[in-house]
Structure formats: structure tokens, C-alpha cells
């Protein structure tokens, strides 16, 4: 079971914050197909939001095909969003770290590094899409 939270200060609507938290848990493998989401009442009481907000979030997740409401039983995860295994992620992170070290040695500040990464991603994915 995952814990939810809603920030009133965020510009993101409360139901979207809940949707995002489920998506993130699915991506990180903290939620898997077959898991039951907490009930609307549990979430409403836990984070002190309107039950309709929770319902709306669950409906959105259902619409995306990620969860399924089973009458009288609850809402269950039916699809996973998890990507590569933790080992793969660790390996990739290690090689990224060594690249970042090189970039810093060359005097790049974090925002420069971010810009290089963004533009590289942008150009690579553009090429891929147009190909």
C-alpha cells in the first residue's frame, strides 16, 4: 500500500497529484498488477481531501487502463508502468555519474549539464521520431 499526500500550495490540481503519485509508484515498481489501492474513504481521511477528489483520481487511472474498480472489492492495479530493472538502472546511473564528473571537471555548472542533457535528448528523440 502506498501513502498519498496532497500539497495545497501546488498549482497541480489535487486529483492530478494523486494520479501522479500512483503513476510514480507504478514506474518505480512499488505498485504492481494485482495490488489493491486504498479505498476512497481511506485516502480521503489520510490526506484530508474531498472523497470526490479521490474518486476523480481513480476514474482517471481507470480511464488510462492502469487500474480497475471491482464492485464490492476495491480498486486494483491491472497494468505496470515499471521500466528497466533496478540493476539496469544502477548500471546506467553509474555511467551517467562518471559522465557528470567529466562535465564538472570541464567546468560545467549543473544548469549547463541539464541543458546539454535536454538538448541531447531532444535531438536524439527527434531523429528517432522522424526516422
Amino acid at each position, binding site marked *: 500500500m502506498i501513502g498519498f499526500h*496532497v500539497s*495545497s500550495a501546488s498549482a497541480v490540481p*489535487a486529483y492530478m497529484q494523486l494520479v501522479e503519485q500512483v503513476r510514480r509508484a507504478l514506474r518505480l515498481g512499488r505498485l504492481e498488477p494485482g495490488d489493491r489501492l486504498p479505498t*476512497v*474513504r481511506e485516502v*480521503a*481521511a*489520510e*490526506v*484530508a*481531501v*474531498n*472523497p*470526490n*477528489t479521490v474518486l476523480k483520481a481513480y476514474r482517471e487511472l481507470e480511464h488510462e487502463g492502469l487500474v480497475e474498480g471491482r464492485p464490492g472489492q476495491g480498486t486494483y492495479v491491472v497494468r505496470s508502468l515499471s521500466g528497466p530493472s533496478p540493476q539496469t538502472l544502477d548500471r546506467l546511473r553509474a555511467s551517467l555519474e562518471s559522465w557528470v564528473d567529466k562535465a564538472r571537471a570541464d567546468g560545467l555548472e549543473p544548469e549547463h549539464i541539464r541543458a546539454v542533457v535536454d538538448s541531447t535528448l531532444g535531438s536524439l528523440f527527434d531523429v528517432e521520431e522522424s526516422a
Partner: protein
Amino acid sequence: MNGALVADGLTKRYRKTVALDRCSFAIPERSIVALVGPNGAGKSTLLHCATGLVRPTEGTLTVLGGQPGDPTLPRVGFVAQDAPLYRDFTADELLKMGGKLNREFDLPFARARLVDVGIPLDRPTDRLSGGQRAQVALCLALAKRPRLLLLDEPLASLDPLARREFLSALMDGVAEEHMTVVLSSHLLTDLERVCDHLMVLRSGQVQTLGATDELLAKHKRLIGPPQPRRPKITGVEQIVSAARAERQIELLVRTNGDILDPAWDQYDVSLEDVVLAYLEPRAGEALLDLEVAGA
């Protein structure tokens, strides 16, 4: 009009002051309404009218389809400001009293609830914290299994943690039992996460009432030149507030269509912006001397 709480020309005058001034509105069933307005706007009077404790001077108020205070009505729960409780009574004694005084009162439910939120049942309520007293008052109201729950400034005297715990207990109750809830506050911030409707009251008059997502979609902030080229802005139903600076005018408007006029930059607003705009003295249209399309 249908609704949990329907007012038609509702007016309440005390000797010299007008607390409610020709209010007409309908609060839909199963909504959670934030009733927001400054002190003295008439919020408490409105809630007291709904309980039947105060009789309107003119106009009518219908509560769940009947007269306020009618004992045959479906249950109405009310928590007055600062959650007044008999100070020498323990929570358990208050619950027993609630059971005796109400035709329908879910005593086991109420007791379990209080234990659940960690309230000592055997301590006189004046030795409980403000947050705990608020929880006891809420629990007494919820134990009636109300179809309409009225809460007057329930959070005003609570610290942030107690506020959260109170709202959490309230949302738990709402999720369990479908009911209409009206919570008053002079601040919106605390209520924004729990309400799905907003009602703004100023000087005894209803400024706006609507579903929060519709209000957010309908209201826009417009920024344009100080001398608008056109006297009308198509798509604007009402200019709610206006501020004039040397080089620009900033408006908060209620729209009834798309605003396509390129002279005006438009921005989304927050619910807080909407509240503040309606609480400003109604100067918008007069100040600008603008003709508004559709007005």
C-alpha cells in the same frame, strides 16, 4: 429549486444591522461547501437560520425540503463556533446525553470514533485540548448520522495539526455517509482541499456560489491597455474586480464565452483569487466605466 439548502430572498435584520440581505441560492445535495466571507458577513446568521435557531425577517429558507428546525426533518447536524461543550462533562457523558436527547444517535459508532482519534473518554472536556474538543463536537454531530452538517468556523481556534486531524475526521465521515456539508471560514486556504463548492458572502449578500472547478474555469485574470480600444469585451459576463495602474488595467472577470480580443492577455486564476475579487468592494465596472457584453 432543489437542494439541501435553498434560500429565496432570505433576509435577517437585527435592530439596526442587516445580517442577511435578500439572499437567494441553492446548495446542491451531497456537496461540500466552503462558506467564505469576512467577519460580520452573515455566515453565522445564515447557519443559525438553517438550524432554526434564528428566524428570518423576510424570505424563506428550505432545509432538506422542509422548514428549518422541524423535528420531522431528516437529520441536521450543527457545530457552533468554538465547539461549545459542557465543560464539566466527560466525552463519554456527552455521548450518553446525545443518545438520550436525539431520536437517532449512533452511540457505539461515536465511541469507537473518539477512541480511534485518541480522545480520553473519561476526562472533563475543559481539560481537553482545543483540537480534542473540536473532535468531540464533530463526533457528536456525526453520531446523529446527519444528511446536512453545518460547521461554523470549525477550524478558527485550531493549530495546523489539529486542523488537519479535524478535516481528516470530517472527510472520513463524509466518505462513509453521503451528506451535504457547509463549513464557514473567513479564510479559504484551510477549506480548499476539502470543499467542492464555494459560496462567498459579503455584507449579507451572496457574491457567488458554484462548483469550484466551474468557478476556476469561468474566471480569468485579464491584463490590457489602460484605455481599452473597445468598450466591450466579448466573452465577459461580469467584471468582478479591477485595478488600474499607470500602464495597464488588471481585471478579474467572470466569462460566458471565450475571450478572443488580442488586446487582453488572459491568465488562469486560483480559488483564492476568485474569493478576494468578490470580497473587494464592488468597484469593477463603475471604476472602468466599461460596457460589458451581455450585461
